[in-house]
């Protein structure tokens, strides 16, 4: 390979910054502009699987405590009680179901590891890309099941399974 005359690295460095400046200053319609957005005025759409906040589908939760026990920070607080529900078939014994009284996640402690979402056997916890829930006071970051339920609306549809993926066996 022939040795091409090389631009000294020092000049190349200056060129890189100058080129970036020219690119930033170029009007948007010519494919220029900054890589950033001006946040409060315009917002980026986070990717569909972004880990913004953990939402709760209350109906699916059985207060089994698996998420609370697997949480590395112990930031999930669950209280529940048992209730009798009408039998499934006529003449059967009444069923015992777990009722959820309290489901709180302390987002001041949460480290967004997602183990609770993984571990939930009843599909009650979901990742949502919602990220605008900062609070002036740290204690206000403890969110209850009503607030967690509201975030369910922001959870995107689960994407299609990949071709050849193993289908979950339904009942």
């Amino acid at each position: 390979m022939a040795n091409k005359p090389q631009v000294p690295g020092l000049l190349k460095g200056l060129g890189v910054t100058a080129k970036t400046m020219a690119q930033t200053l170029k009007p948007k319609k010519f494919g220029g502009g900054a890589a950033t957005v001006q946040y409060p005025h315009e917002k980026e759409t986070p990717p569909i699987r972004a880990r913004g906040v953990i939402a709760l589908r209350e109906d699916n939760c059985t207060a089994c405590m698996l998420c609370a026990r697997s949480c590395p920070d112990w930031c999930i607080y669950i209280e529940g009680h048992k209730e009798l529900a009408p039998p499934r078939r006529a003449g059967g014994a009444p069923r015992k179901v777990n009722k959820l009284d309290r489901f709180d996640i302390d987002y001041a402690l949460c480290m967004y590891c997602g183990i609770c979402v993984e571990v939930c056997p009843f599909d009650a916890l979901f990742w949502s890309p919602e990220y605008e829930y900062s609070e002036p006071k740290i204690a206000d970051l403890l969110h209850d099941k009503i607030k967690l339920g509201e975030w369910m609306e922001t959870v995107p549809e689960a994407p299609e399974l990949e071709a050849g993926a193993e289908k979950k066996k339904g009942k």
Partner: protein
Amino acid sequence: MNLAVTIPYWGQSLLRVLGGTVAVLLPAGTIVYLFLFKMMSFMQSRLGPMEAGPYGSMQLFAEVGKWLQKEDITPARADKRVFRAAPLIVLVSTFLLVAVVPFGPDAYFTQFDAGIFYMLAVSSISTLGILMAGWSSANKYSLLGGLRAAGQLIAYELPMVLSVLGVVIQAGTMNLQTIVLKQNSDSIFGFDGLGYPYIATQFVGFLVFMIAVQAELTQTPFDMPIAESELVSGYMTEYSGFRFLIFFIAEFATAGVFALIASVLFLGGWGIPFSWFGWDSVDSIDNWMNVAGPLVMITKMMVLAGIIMWVRFSYPRFREDQLQRFAWKVLIPVSLINIMLTAIFKVAF
């Protein structure tokens, strides 16, 4: 060529103080907004401040307001009087520097024959302030930063002095005003359309001078004294509020003043080639040059300051030993050879 009104001495002094303040603060503010806020952001593919005023133009006032609100903390074990005086000494050296810079045929604060000598002497007063700040803070990071700054500023003072010597030899004077006049009235091989800016013959000197200025200002490739990844903020670690603001203003004001001096020494200063208007001596220069001169100066200053900042935003930091080696083993020999060659050519032609 006298002004129509005679201004009393106190009036002249007042005007000089006002002019000096403007000549220091205006370039500092412009450099910070245009280069530090905007150019750096563009080079990093972002827009920089956009909220305070149109395109963030009022950001400076917001920053100054923020700093003025902050508590003025003096560490308990600091040497209080020295600690409080240090930033002022750094800023004072900037004001003293601008005093010799000529802005026009009559628009100067003072001019005397030892101008360059004075300029070089006064510019090292800031070293004293920085050393005071580092020593009196009672903080190991401040002390290390202050010592590094002292070592660096002394090391780069030498190439700066030596590179300026080339200009002094060529001009045959140390008066900054005369240097400007010479550059604009001389001709290159009989062609006088460009004047004779000394960058043409003193290009090596110019390069060495700009590198030394970069180091004197502790701008990035040479910012060992405030290396934030090692020393928090070097000699400024313990400063807050108003006094930090003074350090900050002094840094960028000095950048502006050094850019002004570089444009005087190498780029022809406030002048435009005199042959354009048929001027042949100081007294024949039209009066409007006193207005146009400062504008020409500021244009040249902005270009040079832009280059200083561009380099600052592009390069990573030197290591302490590399920095010293670069000054003593590269810059000083190069500028010595430059002086020798200049002297030989001066005598030969």
